[in-house]
């Protein structure tokens, strides 16, 4: 159980926790939070696996994580604006007729 594997497993568990949150909750803000927990988990797996290249980690996955971070921040920002808009239009921060 080396250091990278420990963090990679933590990342995998975070991914599952986020997935569970996405399934359980219907409030959209909580779903966005769950999605963000999932993406942090995925990025942690990336960085942990990069550490297998020795003391100095492999820089390519790190660059991918940076790109992924900016993408997930912009997606979260758009989602939050949409949620606030739904609250104004439907009065509740949940998707109408949400069966999932």
């Amino acid at each position: 159980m080396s250091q990278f594997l420990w963090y990679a497993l933590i990342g995998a568990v975070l991914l599952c926790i986020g997935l569970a949150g996405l399934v359980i909750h219907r409030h959209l803000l909580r779903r966005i939070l769950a999605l963000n927990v999932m993406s942090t988990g995925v990025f942690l797996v990336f960085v942990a696996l990069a550490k297998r290249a020795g003391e100095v980690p492999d820089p390519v996955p790190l660059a991918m994580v940076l790109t992924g971070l900016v993408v997930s921040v912009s997606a979260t920002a758009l989602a939050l604006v949409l949620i606030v808009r739904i609250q104004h239009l439907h009065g509740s921060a949940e998707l109408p007729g949400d069966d999932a």
Partner: protein
Amino acid sequence: MIKTDPLRFIAILLALLTIVAFGHMLAWSLWTLPPEAAGLSLIVNEKMPESGVDAQVTAILLNFRSYDTLLELVVLLVALLGAWYLGKLHLPPQDSKPGLVLEGLVRFLVPVMILVTGYILWLGSHAAGGAFQAGALLAGAGVLMLVVIAEKVAVRDGVRLRALLVAGPGVFALVAGGLMLSGKLMLQYPQQHAGSLILLIEAASTLTIGITLTLLFAGGRPHRGKTD
């Protein structure tokens, strides 16, 4: 929750079971990965001298895989467009008048943050730093200004603001196009100018990321300026 909607409860239970199973399979596949793997780090070390910068991650982001970063800056712009065309900007109502101390702190803190942003941007060429970290810090300064001294911040929607928002990906695309016209492949920096071109793109990107994230925090399109 069981009483209210038994069907949904069973569905969630099933979903959670599949998630646990998926988690085990994922953990097992992570477990079977080879413990030592150099990945691309050897090739990156070998090609670093030609990249024009000393920091490896910045070299990858802005030279080896610069095409990813260009598209990603466009993603940020698209998110802002989505937020803008959804509704007008509603600056948070100033219910609590910011105290003298808070306002004084912000007046001191924001210039310092902008200074540090410049430092981190410059640091990116040879150590941990770069456009995204500097842009995020600039956004922090912007958020502070919006929250504490909102009424003094004259954010007007006009060509100037939009030019700033497009500066990052715009400069990137223009450099890419310009290099192509001069006979090189897209985004293939000439060897001797690589460092300066990267710094130019990073500076424009920092500005764009900072302002875009601040406007995304504000959540809507600023009012139309008198000038436009």
